């Protein structure tokens, strides 16, 4: 026991010694899934955050302090929790950004809230995250339910209109992977579609890791659905499309709600058959005329740096990592003048950026204490995109769109 204590003292002494040397730098934790199942988008999200840090540092840091990201690999909820504990206790960090996935954010933010720190969420969209009444939890991105609602809204505003039919003449089927993400998006889509007067055939959950979805596709066929809204994870999205083709199931429109549906790998797996599929999430390809000059310039610089650093165009997930982190450093930390969680919380709550003021078109205004969605950015919203000629273009809302929706109804599989 004595040896253990002595060991701990040495570790503590080394740790404080190290932090004393780096007094000039401000250290911020970055928790993302960097290995395992979620590694692709976790890394992408972090890469966006890294560009934000680089840009801030090159412009002289925050109040002369250089920003250093201390990364943690949150590949599973268990690891998210232990890494959050490590960053908070051993690395002595008060400010953590993350986490891309809602499940991981739940686990990690609990630890940080207990430590009294600030958790800055730039990716997880599950509504429940900001319904826990946490004082130190802030989410820059939109919620799952706003995404599901948008899917149902474009079914009416774009698809029903193009088909020249009333919602009551159209059948909507909602399919989703059964994790927190898929379920919350799908439930919101179901409620909104019902409210808009669509005939909602069913909401069908399935496991994202499944190796076969033929029974789901056959139920889709039996339901006679005109419009399908889908929240998927990865292989399930590819399986749905390929098995729809194999089983000859044609629909008038297919709406994916973000994630895989907005990634280049989705287009690669389907080639020309991807054209016409809708995708609701944020977008880095919005009409920049709707942005403030500063936000448009920031977006252009980010895209250029990202491509140079990582050799690919940033996806939405990378962009949300950038925007969230940039707002934290440039607007919140600068205003607070320190990394003290209390000062940061006050600075965050007083933030008031109008719509169009960030590179994703969002404004920033956090719901304050006592609000049922405390810590949620009330001015973040998803946009509707469509795959056209192998690329995603924004088709709604009008202010941000860069093209009109086409290919409604979708051609039959033999013509795609």
């Amino acid at each position, binding site marked *: 026991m004595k040896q253990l204590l002595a060991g701990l003292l040495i570790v503590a002494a080394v740790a404080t010694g190290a932090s004393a040397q780096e007094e000039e730098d401000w250290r911020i934790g970055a928790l993302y899934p960097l290995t395992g199942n979620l590694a692709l988008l976790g890394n992408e999200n972090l890469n966006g955050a890294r560009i934000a840090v680089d840009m801030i540092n090159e412009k002289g840091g925050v109040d002369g302090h250089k920003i250093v990201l201390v990364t943690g690999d949150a590949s599973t909820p268990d690891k998210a929790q232990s890494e959050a504990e490590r960053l908070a206790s051993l690395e002595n960090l008060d400010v953590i950004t993350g986490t891309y996935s809602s499940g991981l954010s739940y686990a990690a933010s609990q630890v940080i809230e207990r430590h009294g720190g600030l958790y800055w969420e730039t990716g997880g969209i599950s509504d429940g995250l900001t319904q826990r009444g946490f004082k130190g939890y802030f989410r820059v991105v939109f919620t799952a339910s706003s995404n599901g609602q948008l899917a149902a809204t474009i079914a009416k505003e774009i698809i029903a209109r193009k088909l020249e039919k009333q919602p009551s003449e159209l059948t909507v089927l909602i399919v989703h992977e059964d994790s927190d993400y898929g379920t919350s998006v799908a439930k919101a889509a179901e409620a909104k579609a019902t409210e808009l007067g669509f005939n909602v055939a069913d909401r069908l959950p399935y496991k994202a890791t499944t190796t076969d979805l033929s029974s789901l596709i056959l139920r889709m066929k039996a339901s006679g659905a005109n419009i399908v809204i889908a929240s998927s994870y990865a292989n399930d999205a590819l399986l749905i499309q390929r098995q729809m083709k*194999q089983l000859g199931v044609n629909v008038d429109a297919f709406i994916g709600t973000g994630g895989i549906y907005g990634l280049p790998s989705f287009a690669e797996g389907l080639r020309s058959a991807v054209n016409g599929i809708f995708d609701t999430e944020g977008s880095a390809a919005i009409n920049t005329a709707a942005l403030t000059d500063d936000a448009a310039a920031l977006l252009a610089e980010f895209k250029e740096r990202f491509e140079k650093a990582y050799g690919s165009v940033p996806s939405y997930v990378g962009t949300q990592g950038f925007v969230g982190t940039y707002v934290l450093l440039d607007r919140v930390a600068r205003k607070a003048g320190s990394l003290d969680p209390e000062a940061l919380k006050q600075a965050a709550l007083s933030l008031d950026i109008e719509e169009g003021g960030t590179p994703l078109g969002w404004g920033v205004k956090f719901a304050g204490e006592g609000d049922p969605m405390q810590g949620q950015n009330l001015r973040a919203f998803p946009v509707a995109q469509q795959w056209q000629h192998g690329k995603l273009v924004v088709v709604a809302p009008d202010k941000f769109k860069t093209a009109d929706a086409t290919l409604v109804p979708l051609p039959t599989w033999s013509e795609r």
Partner: protein
Amino acid sequence: MISILPQLIVSGILIGGIYALLSIGLTLIFGVLRIVNFAQGEFIMLAMFGAFWLHQLWGIDPYLSIFIIAPVIFVLGLATERIVIKPILHAPHAMQIFATFGISVILQNLALTLWGPDYRSIQTAYSTQSFIVGTVAISASSLYGFLIALAMAGALIGFLQFSRHGKALRALVQNRYAASLMGIDTERLNRLAFGVGVACAAVAGCVLTPIYYTFPTVGIDLIITAFVVVVLGGLGSVTGAIIGGLIIGITQTLTGFFISVEFKDLIALILFIAILLIRPQGLLGRAGMEEVGMK
């Protein structure tokens, strides 16, 4: 509703074939070495990456790449057996689990480092093709997978029944000590069985490349059902793996359509428990096989 029944049965049989394909190597390794290879899914993943790159770089069809990738993975299997499996063959069961699980983690992260976490896919003419027979659509890629599973099982059963090595392997399965007393080189046969077992995984990987995305953790998703199939069919039984695969496949498709897509695994697993209550050794397993690790 009833008019869709033939389609459901056909779809169930086809996915059952895929399950069988995934399970055959696993059951062979278990039958001979009495080791549950938790890294089997990662060997499938390596083969998928192999087939992906051969197609991407030189346009080689994934089915043809079986003849390149299976031998490579076979040699990799021999090396793995020599370095990791052999030293732990008589170790406690928990240690064996950790060792093969460790291989799985190493291979996953190796793939992550080498090829990144991207979802990759290839598209061949038959990726989304299907044959229409009456009102029933038969997916071409699944049908080929099913036929390859049958051919692989046939070849393996033929090998075990008629070849000298195969007979020796069966003797080993029946009684390891008696087999070694009869002069059978058990160490060499262990290595052979592990190599052939992971080569079967390689065949499965090549067949699945046109159907699924290829990414570092794809093996986990694929192999879970295979464990169920192997136990259901009887540990160590190749024919059992085929029958087990078909039972799980058809049950899942029917319950997925008539009850709930979300519950299709649940109901297949309830059936699985029910069968094991009646036949603890699995459908075609020998009594006593299931007691591995108990002694």
